[in-house]
């Protein structure tokens, strides 16, 4: 069953790639807009031999990783403080609901003015966008704490710190991990966007250059690279999630099936 699915998936991928090869060659779509798969693969190979490409990839990953770490640490700390301190959660709810839907790209002009094309402008956008993903998940996670467990810990005389460590955190962890997974994807989107629009060094800036110099196969090759990067980040985040939650029912159940 699983093998059959994998075979079907591979077939689907092959058909997709073949369509990409045949359609432009037969003139169904304009070759100038949709280069055949083989030419994109060719461009991809050339990119891989270019040192500047690897520098750009490194720049993008740096912005992504730094931003993600800052957002996760900030989101977890702020989320825990808001949930543990009485009344703080109620007092901040409306502000969070107000700030969250503000599109992060609204900050692009401000980032340009403040930091130009430095890494810091990328970080401003990445951190702003991914912070909310983590924060909201932490808040939901803490609300999910079993009142019986909480009361039991309290009656055993566990202090605030120990309760956070042994009751609150394990309950919230699955939610936090979902938040981290979402934030990792959002951080990549914003890192590439900032590079594309602001011109900070990275894959996004390279895409902008490929576009303005009409290097169409390279443009597609770079888009494919960002897609693969996104895919790897998703897979990586899932792997981390499985490890961190190995003790948890949802993961244990998955393994048993």
């Amino acid at each position, binding site marked *: 069953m699983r093998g059959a699915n994998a075979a079907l998936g591979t077939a689907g991928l092959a058909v997709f790639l073949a369509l990409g090869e045949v359609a432009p060659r037969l003139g169904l779509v304009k070759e100038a807009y949709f280069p055949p798969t083989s030419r994109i693969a060719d461009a991809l190979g050339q990119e891989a031999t270019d040192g500047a490409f690897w520098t750009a990839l490194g720049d993008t990953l740096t912005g992504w990783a730094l931003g993600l770490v800052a957002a996760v640490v900030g989101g977890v700390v702020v989320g825990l403080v808001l949930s543990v301190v009485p009344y703080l959660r109620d007092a901040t709810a409306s502000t969070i609901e107000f700030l969250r839907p503000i599109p992060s790209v609204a900050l692009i002009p*401000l980032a340009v003015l403040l930091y130009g094309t430095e890494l810091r402008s990328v970080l401003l956008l990445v951190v702003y966008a991914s912070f909310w993903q983590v924060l909201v998940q932490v808040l939901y996670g803490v609300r999910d704490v079993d009142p019986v467990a909480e009361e039991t810990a309290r009656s055993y005389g566990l202090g605030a710190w120990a309760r956070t460590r042994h009751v609150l955190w394990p309950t919230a962890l699955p939610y936090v991990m979902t938040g981290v997974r979402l934030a990792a994807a959002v951080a990549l989107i914003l890192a590439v966007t900032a590079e594309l629009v602001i011109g900070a060094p990275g894959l996004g800036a390279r895409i902008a250059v490929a576009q303005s110099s009409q290097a169409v196969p390279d443009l597609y090759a770079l888009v494919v690279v960002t897609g693969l990067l996104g895919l790897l980040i998703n897979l990586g985040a899932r792997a981390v999630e499985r490890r961190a939650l190995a003790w948890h029912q949802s993961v244990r159940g998955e393994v048993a099936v």
Partner: protein
Amino acid sequence: MRPLFVVALPALLVAAWWFASDDSTAVYWPPLRTILRTFPDVWTGERLRTDVLPSVLRLLAGYVSAAVAGVALGTVIGSYRRVRAFCEPVLEFLRAVPPPVLVPVIMLFAGIGDTMKIVVIASGCLWPVLLNTVEGVRAVDSVMAETARSYGVTGAARLRHVVLRAASPQIFAGLRQALSIGIILMVISEMFAASNGLGFTIVQFQRGFAIPDMWTGILVLGLLGLLLSVLFQLVERRVLGWYHGLRDSSRRAP
């Protein structure tokens, strides 16, 4: 007690901003007083019609077409196991591409007009709706499906009352994700190549060093995001009323 909680912190923050920036001479951080005074000059009358309206219309056009296409395709893919297995790797890859990098690609063949912007918005919004619909349709309760079958509910009625109904909480989760992606893509596509629209205007302000005007633009985008998310919540509460009621009652009676 509750209303106090709702307004207290925002009021405090706005007041803090007002007083902290009141005698600000920093070029990039104009006093809130100036920003608010500039606001009505910039965002009433002509500009509302020439910049805000086109942006919102493009967003709506792209979002609605993505929603329709996503639900339709998702229902087909989700209903047949083989089709799903066939499409899954390709879909996973397409979804992983950060939507903004599609702007330069779509500009190649759609030019720089409204079509390009609508296509960009739709192509970004499609994936969360599509994948969530697939998941939702796949997870339709088998007892429910069998019951419907034995009562002879088939065809369009089955699709409407059983499949889509059961998948609707998931579909709405996808629509919610798509909304924020849509706003982001609307702004970015206008920052690239446009002669009107919110993104275009805000970048113009920034390049012309009209700093208070730029700040009002940021506020407008924030308000637009907020307004759309409130509207979305209202629609969701209406459409999914039955579902939230069900969940609440099952939570209350363990």
